[in-house]
């Protein structure tokens, strides 16, 4: 597993989109089209709680962060922009 400790905004964006592509079975190009308002949990039927759990666990591995219960709420998972902002805050807060 690659743990990227110095992700800048663009690199984090690439990593997160690649991860979503892996989870959703998309081509990387399709995931690159995700914008801040692209809906995730609650919008994509295949993204159920099990898939989200897998996504978060993989984020921990790939980004080198720890995600606590209290971090996870509907808002943070609702859009791509919110998920990215969450990851940025976690990376910045270490």
């Amino acid at each position, binding site marked *: 597993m690659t743990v990227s400790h110095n992700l800048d905004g663009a690199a984090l964006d690439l990593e997160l989109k690649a991860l979503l*592509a892996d989870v*959703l079975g998309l081509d990387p190009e399709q995931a690159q089209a995700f914008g801040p308002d692209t809906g995730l949990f609650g919008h994509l039927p295949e993204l159920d709680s*099990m898939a989200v*759990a897998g996504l*978060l666990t993989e984020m921990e591995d790939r980004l080198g962060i720890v995600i606590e219960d209290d971090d996870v709420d509907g808002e943070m998972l609702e859009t791509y922009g919110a998920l990215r902002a969450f990851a940025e805050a976690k990376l910045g807060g270490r």
Partner: protein
Amino acid sequence: MFTWTPPAADGTPARDELLVAFDRGRDLRLLVCPAWFDEANKLRRFTIEVMRRLDRAGVDCLLPDLPGCNESLAPLTEQTLQGWRTAMAAAAEALCATHVLAIRAGALVAPPDLPGWHYAPQSGPKLLRGMIRARTIAAREAGLAETSEELMAEGRKAGLTLSGWAIGPALFSALESAEPVLAPGQSELAQSVIGGPGLWLRAEPDEDAGQADRLAARIVQSLAGAPA
């Protein structure tokens, strides 16, 4: 489809367990220890696809169910980590396996006396963490407050149903510290070696012929004496 009969535990009658096998009585006989729980569903087709390729390459492949999983009639809640290890070792012996391919958490129960491979091995704590997290997310959506800590405590004490799998307290507790260990003659095949995204990550079960080709090819090369 075939069956094999595990040895009877104390006082309980042995039950036949189902087995998917490509068995043509060849010299190389690979026991496949499947992925667990939700990952088992997501990787089932991939697992069989790898077995088909190995069959074509001259390797017999034997995929037993873990007792309590898949077609097994044994109750899942009564299963233990040690019980699964014993079952896989018994399957290896009954089926005359010469090698083992363990997939994800299957590595936790791979018979240590067989040479072989751990494909993208998964640890017990990570397996539990993912399943517990799925449950807390679903609970939150349903307006219930469940914390990971409470769920872990409940799992240790009374067992816990995670993603539909009723895991007993003994298995739950054992998984909290279970790490895959490579026995002599066994080596790890990481997902980065196979290439592409791990299919267990996929929200829906999927397949990937290229990954199946590459995993089977690695095993065939390794059996032919090339370094894994």
